[in-house]
């Protein structure tokens, strides 16, 4: 598959802060590419460099095999974006906002066509209402209509589910999947939630402090054989000794808690083994090792925040 986005050695420095450091990745055509990282990891900076809002300190960005510096206008004709929150003119109506976005993209659609676009996102009945009267969900829908008005090949969404209610989040996920799987669009979506990326993305990249931590197919990165299983038993020492005397010892992770790294489908066998050896199991928790790692990044940051407070 051909790469729609190709980024090489991209870096951005704001005075003393290295926001993005030597980042390289490629996004294939028609895939949903998840860009995962905690807040402040460098996601938005990278997206802003992709969209020419920020000039990189070093590195190159190629979109549709063209350099963003030299072919900016040509590239942006085929890119639709929502950055953090939908950017709209609150004092204008939904129809007027959409018409402006269409004109900025070089189109001149009729009122009927604009209404049809609003119908697609379910806000046609509010076409002539000022945006300042809209809920966050409605603004997000209008933002999507604006981002897609010129039928772009590449859609860049920065934290698209922020501030949405559960129904809005589900609608956004369905829309992303429909755009990719049914309409063949390439979607580059950032999030700080692994659970969100996990359900929509084909590939993903994890970024922390501006540096790439992991990249690959979601199915590979979230391989079930890398599941971390944590057992809580009434007598932990007995449980430890039973495990150490068995084949399960090979899966035991260095921890004061009972943690084993294994394939997810082996969990019932482990539970049965412990039960057969009279170990009273209080709970069994499992999570993917990548999720555990990602959570540790977030938790570490939270500790810093708590300490500072």
């Amino acid at each position: 598959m051909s790469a729609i986005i190709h980024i090489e050695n991209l870096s951005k420095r704001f005075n003393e802060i290295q926001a993005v450091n030597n980042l390289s990745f490629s996004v294939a055509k028609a895939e949903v590419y998840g860009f995962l990282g905690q807040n402040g990891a460098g996601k938005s900076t990278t997206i802003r460099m992709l969209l020419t809002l920020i000039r990189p300190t070093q590195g190159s960005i190629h979109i549709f095999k063209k350099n963003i510096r030299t072919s900016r206008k040509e590239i942006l004709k085929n890119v639709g974006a929502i950055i953090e929150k939908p950017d709209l003119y609150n004092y204008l109506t939904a129809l007027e906002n959409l018409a402006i976005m269409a004109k900025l993209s070089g189109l001149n659609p009729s009122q009927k066509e604009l209404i049809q676009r609003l119908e697609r996102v379910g806000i046609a009945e509010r076409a002539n209402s000022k945006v300042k009267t809209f809920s966050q969900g409605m603004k997000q829908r209008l933002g999507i209509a604006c981002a897609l008005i010129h039928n772009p090949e590449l859609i860049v969404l920065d934290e698209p589910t922020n501030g949405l209610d559960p129904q809005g989040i589900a609608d956004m996920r369905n829309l992303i999947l429909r755009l990719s799987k049914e309409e063949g669009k390439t979607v580059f979506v950032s999030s700080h939630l692994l659970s969100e990326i996990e359900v929509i993305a084909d590939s993903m990249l994890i970024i922390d402090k501006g540096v790439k931590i992991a990249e690959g197919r979601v199915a590979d990165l979230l391989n079930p054989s890398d599941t971390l299983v944590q057992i809580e038993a009434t007598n932990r020492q007995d449980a430890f000794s039973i495990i150490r005397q068995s084949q399960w010892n090979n899966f035991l992770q260095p921890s004061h808690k009972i943690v084993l790294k294994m394939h997810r489908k082996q969990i019932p066998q482990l539970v049965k083994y412990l039960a057969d050896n009279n170990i009273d199991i209080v709970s069994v928790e499992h999570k993917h090792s990548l999720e555990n790692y990602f959570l540790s990044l977030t938790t570490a940051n939270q500790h810093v925040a708590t300490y500072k407070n």
Partner: protein
Amino acid sequence: MWRLTKIELFKIFKKPRTYIAFGAIAAIICLVQFALYVDGNTYMNFMLGSIENSFSVEGNLLNGYLVFFIILQTLLVHVPLLVALVAGDMIAGEANMGTLRLLITKPVSRTALLLSKFFASTIYSVLLLTFMAVLGLLVSMMIFGTGDLMILKSEKILIIDHADILWRYFAAYGFAALSMITVAALSFLFSVFAENSIGPIIAAMSVVIVFTILTTMDIPFFNHIKPYLFTNHMLNWKGFFDRPVDRREVIKSALYLLGHIVFFVSLTIYIFKRKDILS
């Protein structure tokens, strides 16, 4: 470019704040006209008090031309604020709403985007002056009639024949437009640094006020810098109401203002093209 400028004009005239300027100008003009209509004679007696003993003054002196001249002297000091209100909001306002990043992600060059915004500010400034001219001159002519224009200067009394007045107003209108566009360009420049429109508006007005004070203060030290202050040249619309008109001085001031506009806009484009949009 015209397509982008139309979009910018559409946005300007959809904003309620745009009409504050038109409302303020209408209010001031109507108040001056009403006051002169009701008590114009008192004003004229006060104005002519020192010269009526020496000269016999006859005819319709309180005519539409004089009323508009009074209005211009009162208003042209305040119009820059109204111009800055819109021009200062052109970039900073978009940054504040978050729509600036949206505009940058569209297939439009930053230079074209800025120029369209500047042209829209220019059209707004010209429309504001046109509104002022129509309401101030035409309505005053209808209410007070026409006649010769008598202007009292510090050292002389100038009487301009009524047939020789209109072209002077048109020329002064063009010069005032140039002055207001200079203020718009200055506000525009400040707008590129800010993420809310209050900062650029206050900054532009502060510069205009400080420069105007320096222009009007008769202190030898300031006299050296006066020729370089654009506010000094902004007042030269009055040059069209001299006889003869000092064309050389007026053209020099006009070119000076034009140079300022080109400098301010070029600097804005230079900065904006290199600016990281973080809003």
